């Protein structure tokens, strides 16, 4: 008999049962794919480093002088377990050409032989790359994307005494040099091709193009670091942990997916809780009838438990399979630059499906608990006993002047918010997912971020790709300062009042007592230290003062007022720390000299773009016109505004951020559409009688469709408002931690108000309301005679 009841129930309440089943499938799908994504994202860098065989410490040397010294010193250390060295060739900005133009490397590049490389590298299909054919080359994703180099494109590579033409075979995933923060891009060619570079560069004049990378296995990276800091010819060093942090942008994207995953799990639980509660409340009348004819509470409860668990089982199996492609899609999107082995664990999917099954069981048990308390009459009255009727209408039509349709929409929401709670929570979470992500992205692309890159704010940045070598001399500072002053005069002659300045980068060792670090060091040309942003203290106004990043201060255990020793060239100089700042260069490490400090620019590691800051307050049109003038004045330079410069500095991330943005918006819209369509269908099913009554008393279809749609629109509008209000604290909570890893002590999110709070919410609002409108069209099929379905 009970089986018969179940069978008829499933058939008779086809719409509601189908809706519930779809929600169950979605829940299993979301939970299993989200948990898989979370597991993958949380350990992505660890897994990538582990399977790539990245060693504890690495050193890159330039020239041939450091080789012997380093080998001798490192092999003598008891805490160094193994050293693997790779021969490399350095590539400058004028080394690689595609279609007759130098490609943008962002920084100095490296050329390696596939047979010589000290770690495992992977192709775009995440398969280990062990062989490269002669004449072929593999390069980093961002280099290909930023320079529009297609697979199969021919590039010309020149280093030392050899120039070769190579066919781009594909993207290479490289744990050590593959991150977007790691400016140095690596190019991989065959052993035979590499040997051609070696054989053609035996002359001493080519030594500056040669170098080594040492992959060191050690139990004490600090001690190795101290030893290496004393050796000249070291271009850069790093620990495995520091390398991991260079994946910060990937981690931010992964972090966004982590947030998306957590949100999807919350949405799934909310969906299940409310849908089960909602559908069981629909069963009260039948529960009452069963109680009235003498069926025991336990039997009634079991009946519904069996029904919901049977549906949950179907949902779990379907969701298990549906979750696999969805999870793969999420994991792929979240870890484009990582190789993490198997993306999907079927065991995880199975356990998630099982967990959802249990949760459904619990929710059903919880929702049917009232069965015990109800008298048959209470149940027939939909769970409300005659003496305890709750006041439903909170608003009054008689007290206002609003149109009935608006009044009814508001009144329904306020009277039965429980029914709209699932939509409200989902909409708020969805909009938050978008606004948090957009705020993160606009913060990463904000001109304000210049300060984080150890630069002063400016209006334009002019990149000189080919002529910076002229400053590689002891009087480089004077030459550079003269050049930017000349630039100021040229601009003034064209009626552009501006302050021009430039930043030069060095790598120096800084020490306080036993604590030592090799760090990026900055000095400005024609700038003053008060133009930069500090988080504590005062700018280093005197030559014996410096500012250090708070990461360096923490590492050296020093603070403002303490004295540190910096090895500038061969001279050890003492400086008093006058200020602390935050930086995203080199994972927050850095120091800034007063501009009057005498430094030999032949030791310079790099030159940042010339910066132009207008001294008046030009209009937007004027800014554009000035840019055009400057582009004509300096045709060899790449001119970027501050926003473009930041975007360029985080090259490779912009595309990924944009993909992530589109993916998350698509997910949110899909969830909203699914939810609204299903909820609207269930509302229409539940309110069929009332809709018929309203038709009977003369309400038109379009009025009723508007009424149903308005409710969703009101909930959506409220959700947008709530989400906008919650965005900042939620962003701090969700993404602030990731920024801290980047070296930021505090973060003020840069909000693109138009995009984050207007365009995207309106787009989601429009799509959601449109979905609601389309679903509400089902009202047209309800006849006024169905008034007899009213409960």
């Amino acid at each position, binding site marked *: 008999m009970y089986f018969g009841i179940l069978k008829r129930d499933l058939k008779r309440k086809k719409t509601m049962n189908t809706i519930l089943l779809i929600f169950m499938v979605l829940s299993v799908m979301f939970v299993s794919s989200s948990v898989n994504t979370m597991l993958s994202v949380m350990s992505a860098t660890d897994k990538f480093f582990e399977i790539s065989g990245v060693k504890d410490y690495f050193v890159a040397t330039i020239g041939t002088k450091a080789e012997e010294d380093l080998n001798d010193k490192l092999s003598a250390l008891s805490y160094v377990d193994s050293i693997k060295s790779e021969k490399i060739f350095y590539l400058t900005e004028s080394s690689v050409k595609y279609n007759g133009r130098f490609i943008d490397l962002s920084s100095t590049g490296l050329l390696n032989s596939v047979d010589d490389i000290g770690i495992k590298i992977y192709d775009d299909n995440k398969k280990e790359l062990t062989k490269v054919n002669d004449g072929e080359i593999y390069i980093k994703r961002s280099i290909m994307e930023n320079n529009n180099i297609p697979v199969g494109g021919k590039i010309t590579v020149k280093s030392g005494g050899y120039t070769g033409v190579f066919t781009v075979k594909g993207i290479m995933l490289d744990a050590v040099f593959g991150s977007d923060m790691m400016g140095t891009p690596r190019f991989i060619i065959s052993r035979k091709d590499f040997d051609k570079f070696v054989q053609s560069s035996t002359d001493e004049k080519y030594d500056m193009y040669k170098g080594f990378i040492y992959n060191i296995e050690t139990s004490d990276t600090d001690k190795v670091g101290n030893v290496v800091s004393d050796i000249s010819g070291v271009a850069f060093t790093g620990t495995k942990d520091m390398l991991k942090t260079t994946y910060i942008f990937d981690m931010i994207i992964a972090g966004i997916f982590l947030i998306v995953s957590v949100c999807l799990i919350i949405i799934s639980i909310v969906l299940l809780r409310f849908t089960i509660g909602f559908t069981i409340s629909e069963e009260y009348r039948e529960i009452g009838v069963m109680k009235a004819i003498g069926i025991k509470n336990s039997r009634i409860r079991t009946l519904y438990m069996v029904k919901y668990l049977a549906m949950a089982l179907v949902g779990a199996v379907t969701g298990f399979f549906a979750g696999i492609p969805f999870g793969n899609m999420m994991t792929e999107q979240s870890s484009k630059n990582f190789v993490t082995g198997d993306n999907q664990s079927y065991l995880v999917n199975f356990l998630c499906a099982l967990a959802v099954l249990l949760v459904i069981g619990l929710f059903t048990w919880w929702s049917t608990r009232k069965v015990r308390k109800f008298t048959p009459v209470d149940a027939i009255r939909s769970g409300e006993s005659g003496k305890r009727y709750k006041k439903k209408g909170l608003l009054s039509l008689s007290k206002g002047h609003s149109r009935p349709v608006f009044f009814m929409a508001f009144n329904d929401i306020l009277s039965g918010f429980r029914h709209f709670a699932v939509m409200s929570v989902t909409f708020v979470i969805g909009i938050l997912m978008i606004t948090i992500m957009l705020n993160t992205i606009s913060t990463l692309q904000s001109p304000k971020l210049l300060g984080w890159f150890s630069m002063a704010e400016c209006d334009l940045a002019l990149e000189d790709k080919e002529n910076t070598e002229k400053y590689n001399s002891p009087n480089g500072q004077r030459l550079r300062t003269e050049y930017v002053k000349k630039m100021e005069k040229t601009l003034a002659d064209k009626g552009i009042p501006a302050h021009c300045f430039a930043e030069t980068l060095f790598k120096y060792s800084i020490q306080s007592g036993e604590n030592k670090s090799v760090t990026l060091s900055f000095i400005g040309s024609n700038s003053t230290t008060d133009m930069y942003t500090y988080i504590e203290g005062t700018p280093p106004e005197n030559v014996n003062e410096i500012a250090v990043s708070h990461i360096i201060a923490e590492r050296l255990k020093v603070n403002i007022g303490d004295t540190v020793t910096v090895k500038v060239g061969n001279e050890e100089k003492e400086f008093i720390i006058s200020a602390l700042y935050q930086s995203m260069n080199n994972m927050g490490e850095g120091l800034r000299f007063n501009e009057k400090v005498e430094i030999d620019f032949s030791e310079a590691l790099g030159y940042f773009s010339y910066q132009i800051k207008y001294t008046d307050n030009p209009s937007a049109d004027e800014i554009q016109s000035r840019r055009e003038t400057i582009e004509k004045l300096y045709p060899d330079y790449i001119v970027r505004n501050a926003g473009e410069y930041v975007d360029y500095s985080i090259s490779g991330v912009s595309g990924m951020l944009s993909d992530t943005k589109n993916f998350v918006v698509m997910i949110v819209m899909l969830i909203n559409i699914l939810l609204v369509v299903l909820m609207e269908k269930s509302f229409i099913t539940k309110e069929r009688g009332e809709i018929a009554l309203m038709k009977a008393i*003369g309400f038109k279809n379009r009025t009723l469709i508007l009424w149903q749609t308005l409710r969703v629109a009101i909930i959506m509008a409220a959700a947008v408002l709530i989400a906008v209000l919650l965005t900042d604290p939620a962003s701090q909570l969700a993404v602030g931690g990731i920024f801290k890893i980047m070296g930021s002590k505090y973060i003020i999110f840069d909000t693109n108000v138009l995009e984050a709070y207007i365009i995207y919410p309106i787009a989601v609002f429009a799509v959601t309301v449109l979905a609601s409108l389309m679903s509400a069209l089902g009202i047209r099929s309800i006849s006024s005679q169905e008034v007899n379905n009213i409960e």
Partner: protein
Amino acid sequence: MKKILEVNELCKTYVINKRQNNVLRNVSFFVNEGEMVAVMGPSGSGKSTLLYTVSGMDSMTAGEVEFDGKNISKLKPDDLAELRLDEMGFIFQQMYMLKNLSVMDNILLPARQSKINPMTSKEKLEYCRELMHKLGIIEIADNDINEVSGGQLQRACICRSMINKPKVIFADEPTGALNRSSSDEVMDELCKINAEGTTIMLVTHDAKVAARCTRVLYIVDGNIKGEYNNTESDMRKRERSLNNWLLEMGW
């Protein structure tokens, strides 16, 4: 006397499981302005279908229905809805109301929705109060519909049907769910409304209710089998006379 409702050769057929079910077969009748007409007949004879079809709530298979000179069979769904809102009132056997609205808001709703009702919002509210006062339910104005008795609720439904001052009120078993005393109270109110000039067409099983109408149509198997005019002024005689006629009809 002006005919407010004129029905000619009205047919209604339902197809269930590929079988045709002719519920109304060439029904013709009329209702004059100011009349109170009862439709009686055995269960399944097509009484309610007739009421819903002539009021435009249900479509017809064939025939014509003219309401106040308008051929409703040719009206579009939206025009029919407007007609129901502004010129017709409905009372159902069950006291159907919107759960989330108070009793007064339920009554006021059609008035606020009407675009041709010339009264201002304030006047509509006043008229709503007046109606509720007249029907003795003003004290439950702000109550939830779950908080009042069936009789009170049915009187609220009558108020709702009256709020736009309709030309005709259609009532489907308006006393069917009420006890005798509530039933009498509701009929008293309907008679008063009719006396004030509103035409009423109702479906009932109750001869006592039908006896209070001016005319009774008896329907069997989708056809009007007979028509009875209540001419007696004494209510007891009127009931007796109607009962005799109903017996003749096979009631």
